[in-house]
C-alpha cells in the first residue's frame, strides 16, 4: 500500500491536472451544451406529444403510446449504439454529437409525454368543459387552462427524469463523442494517471449537484395545485 502522499500524488496530481485542464474544459463544454440541447428538445417534443394525445384521435394515440413505450423500455445505450453503428450501414451516417443529442432527446420526450399526459388525464373533465363554455377554442382552453395545471403536476417527477437523462450524456463517450468522460479517459490513458478521471468526476458533481438539490427542494415545496 502506498503512503498518503503517494495517494495524493496519484489521484490529485497538480501538474497533470494543469496540463489536461484545457482538454477537460472542452469536454465539459460539450457535456453542458449537449445536456441543455437534450433538455430543450426533449421537453418541448414531449409536451407536444402529450397535447396531440389529448386530441383523442385513435391512430395518433396508438402511435404516441407505442413510441413512448418503446423508448422507455429500451436501454438508452442500446438506442445510441444501434443509431451510431447501425444506421451508417443502411446509408445514413450520423455524427456522434447528433446521435447522442437525438437519442437522448427522444428518450426524454417519451418520459415527458407520459408525465404530462398523466397530469392532463388526472384533471377533471369539467376543466376543459368549463373553459370551452366560456367561449375559448379547444386550443386556447388547452393552452391557458388544462396545460398549466398539468405541467404543475408533472414538474417534480420531471426534474428527476431530466437529471437522470442529462447525466446520460456520459454515454456519448461510448460512441466517441468528445464529452467530459471521453476527454478524461483519453487524458488518463495518455498520462497513465487517474487524476483527469477524478477531475471529470468532480466536474460532474459540480454540474449536477445543484440540480439534485433543486429537485429535492421542488419535491418539498412545490404546490401541486
Amino acid at each position, binding site marked *: 500500500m502506498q503512503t498518503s502522499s503517494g495517494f495524493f500524488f496519484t489521484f490529485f496530481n497538480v501538474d497533470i491536472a494543469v496540463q489536461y485542464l484545457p482538454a477537460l474544459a472542452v469536454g465539459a463544454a460539450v457535456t453542458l451544451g449537449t445536456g441543455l440541447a437534450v433538455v430543450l428538445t426533449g421537453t418541448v417534443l414531449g409536451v407536444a406529444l402529450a397535447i396531440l394525445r389529448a386530441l383523442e384521435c385513435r391512430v395518433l394515440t396508438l402511435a404516441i403510446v407505442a413510441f413512448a413505450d418503446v423508448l422507455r423500455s429500451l*436501454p438508452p445505450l442500446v438506442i445510441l449504439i444501434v443509431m451510431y*453503428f447501425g444506421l451508417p450501414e443502411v446509408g445514413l451516417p450520423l455524427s456522434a454529437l447528433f446521435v447522442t443529442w437525438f437519442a437522448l432527446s427522444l428518450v426524454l420526450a417519451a418520459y415527458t409525454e407520459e408525465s404530462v399526459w*398523466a397530469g392532463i388525464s388526472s384533471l377533471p373533465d369539467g376543466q376543459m368543459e368549463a373553459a370551452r363554455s366560456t367561449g375559448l377554442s379547444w386550443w386556447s382552453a388547452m393552452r391557458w387552462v388544462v396545460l398549466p395545471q398539468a405541467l404543475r403536476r408533472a414538474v417534480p417527477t420531471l426534474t428527476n427524469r431530466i437529471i437522470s437523462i442529462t447525466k446520460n450524456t456520459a454515454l456519448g463517450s461510448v460512441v466517441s463523442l468528445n464529452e467530459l468522460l471521453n476527454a478524461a479517459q483519453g487524458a488518463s490513458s495518455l498520462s497513465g494517471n487517474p487524476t483527469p478521471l477524478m477531475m471529470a468526476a468532480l466536474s460532474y458533481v459540480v454540474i449536477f449537484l445543484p440540480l439534485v438539490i433543486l429537485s429535492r427542494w421542488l419535491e418539498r415545496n412545490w404546490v401541486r395545485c
Partner: protein
Amino acid sequence: MESLIQNFFNFPVYADVFPYLMKGLWTTVWLSAIVIPLGAISGLVLAVIVTQSSRRWLRWTVIAYIDFFRAFPPLVLLILVYFGWPFLGVELDKLTAVVIAFVLNNASYYAEVFRAGLEGVPKGQMEAARSTGLARWQALCYVLIPQAARNVLPDLVGNSIEVLKLTTIASVVALPELLRSARDAQALLYNPSPIVLAALLYLVLLWPLTRWLGKLEHRRSR
C-alpha cells in the same frame, strides 16, 4: 429496402448469433439478480437511518451520500472504479467493479424511494407497535417497513427496471452481457444485425415490465 434487411433484419445472421446472445441475456439477468437486491437492501438501510436516527450528523452524512451519487453519472462511476482502483494497488475483476459501482449508485436511488415510503407511514404506527411491547427494530421490520414498501411498490419496480436497463453500461468494461455479446458478434460478422436483435430482445424483456409498471402507477393514482 434490401440493404435494410441485409443489415438490420438478416435472418441467417440472427440464427447464427441467437445462442450467443441468449448467453449474454442470461448474464444480464443474473447480473441484475445480484445488483438489484444488494442495491435495494443498502438503500433500505440508508433510508432507515435518514428517517429514524436521532443523530443529526449521521442523517446529514447519509443525505449527502445520497445526493452525491444521484449527481454522479453511473458510467463515470463505473469507469472510475474499474480504471482507478488498480492505482490503489489492488486489481479488481470486471464483475466486482461492476457490482461495486452499481451498488454505490443504486443504493442512493432505492434510499430515496424507501425514505418517501417510510415518511408516508403515520407516526402513530411506530408508537402503537412499541406500546404492544415490540422493540424498535421489531416495530421497524414487522410494522413500518412492510407498509412503506407496499406504498412505494410502483417506484421500487420502476427503479429496478432502470437498474436492469443500466446493466448495459457493463458492456463498456467488456463484461459479456447482452449488449456486449451483440457488439462482439457485430464486429466479428461485419453486420449490425446482432445489435438490432439485441435491441429486440431488450424490448421483449422490458416492454411487459414497463406496461406492468404503468398499471401499478395507475392503480396508485386512483
